[in-house]
């Protein structure tokens, strides 16, 4: 796979994998009154403020191939550090805070009393999520996914530390650009890549904005 293919697959897989967890986290933060909520929120926001290399370093410590978790995962056929999965996890972890934040915003915009009414009519909390919350928040969730995808696409520091630069496996667009910058004549070779990366991110951000304003209109009109 070339770096564009790797970046796209890593981006898509990491976004899809973190989607359920991000929704769950956002629901937890917005719809429960747990007292540890604030501590949890701080923890979730960490990858947003930590330097990505630090995030990568911490992840490497967790998934180190010579450590117990790393060895178990390798035996199970799903090695993380210095493998494609590592690129996926690095992208997922750095994109997670933004993902959760945007879904939480979408949920916040929905009056919690709708969910209450649904439950009073006999619908369980689980079914209420599918019948009420999701239909009213999915554009916001998608907007969050677009942003998380874009963020994962651009991740460098955590990726290079956790997954390393393995052409054909973990060399994403940012990693290739970085390597070519040092190589003689490299700058010429990466012009296309740089433009591609910019284009992807622009599309994602634009999509996110469109979805964002769409779901806002949807809810306001109906209030």
């Amino acid at each position, binding site marked *: 796979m070339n770096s564009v293919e790797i970046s796209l697959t890593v981006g898509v897989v990491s976004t899809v994998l973190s989607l359920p967890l991000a929704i769950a986290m956002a629901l937890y933060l917005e719809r429960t009154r747990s007292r540890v909520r604030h501590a949890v929120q701080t923890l979730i926001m960490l990858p947003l403020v930590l330097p990505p290399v630090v995030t990568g370093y911490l992840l490497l410590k967790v998934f180190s191939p010579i450590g117990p978790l790393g060895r178990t995962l390798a035996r199970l056929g799903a090695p993380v550090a210095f493998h494609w999965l590592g690129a996926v996890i690095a992208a997922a972890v750095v994109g997670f805070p933004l993902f959760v934040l945007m879904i939480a915003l979408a949920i916040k915009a929905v009056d919690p009393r709708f969910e*209450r*009414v649904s*439950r*009073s009519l006999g*619908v369980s909390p689980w079914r209420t999520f599918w019948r009420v919350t999701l239909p*009213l928040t999915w554009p916001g969730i998608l907007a969050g996914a677009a942003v998380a995808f874009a963020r994962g696409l651009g991740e460098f520091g955590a990726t290079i530390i956790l997954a390393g630069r393995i052409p054909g496996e973990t060399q994403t667009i940012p990693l290739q650009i970085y390597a070519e910058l040092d190589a003689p004549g490299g700058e010429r070779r990466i012009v296309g890549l740089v433009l591609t990366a910019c284009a992807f991110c622009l599309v994602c951000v634009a999509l996110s904005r469109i979805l964002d304003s769409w779901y806002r209109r*949807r809810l306001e009109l109906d209030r």
Partner: protein
Amino acid sequence: MKLEVAARLHRPGGFTLDASFRCEAQTVGIVGPSGSGKSTLLDAIAGIEPGSRVVVDGEDMSPRPLHRRNVGYVTQDALLFPHLDVRSNLLFSPRAGPLGDVPAALGIERLLDRMPRNLSGGERRRVALARAILSRPQLLLLDEPFAGLDEARRREAMSLLASLRERFRVPMILVSHVAEEIIGLAEWAVRLEAGQVVRAGPSASVLRAGETRIDNYLTGTVVGDRRVLVEGIELAAAIPRSASGEVRLACYAADILLARERPRAISARNCFEAVVRSLTDAEEMVIVEIESPRLRAVVTPQALDELALSPGSSVIVIAKATAFAHVGAA
């Protein structure tokens, strides 16, 4: 319905609800000023706030979460699901049966394919009410059902709720900060102040001095030019000339005068004999319930003594024609 409630709730911010009562009635009212905890009490009964004891007809609902309590909760803002049309909203509950005559009963049968955003406030409320009724609740909880309604609309709504109650036989708990609104519908009431129950009993007894705008609702047949036959008595009423057939009338208890003797010449066009059914003590006043037609009048304790009224005594009822307002077709 036999209802037993022991609600103990503490809200962060300092508000504490500590309300217990026990009663046996089809319609219960919860009254009190704003901030007294009425809606919180309703939330506690619904199970939105856990930790309160609620027993309905012998069944302890306390351990059950909201979605297993089978209560229909109708709030001031109708809260219709904005992404579903009226029909889907009505049939939302898994317990809902076919629509049947519920939409017609609430006058919304022509709105079924509309989206909530295209309904008026009144229409939305009626849809919300229908949705709750269709979920076959054991108990209907109505939070300030008459808030924001003008006089005429309020009377219509009261009248509607009364007819629904008869038709669908669902016990109701009504919350209102306007005590008089409740009296018309509730047999029993609880008055809350700062999270505590300060008075509980038959609804009339929970009223205070100054809360005399109690409504009487009567059904009768038009028999002449602005004359209505109600329970055997012909009344002069302020109904449109064009009205005919069955009509509903409303009149304030405060507009009913009682006398021991027939006045010889008086401008009031209504003057008839009736029997006192019961007397209820409210703070600083007495509610007199009259038999045929069923009416409530309110007098001071002194007046009561002077007239020497007691259950069973006959009394003359006097009221102007304008006291009886037309509420709508029956």
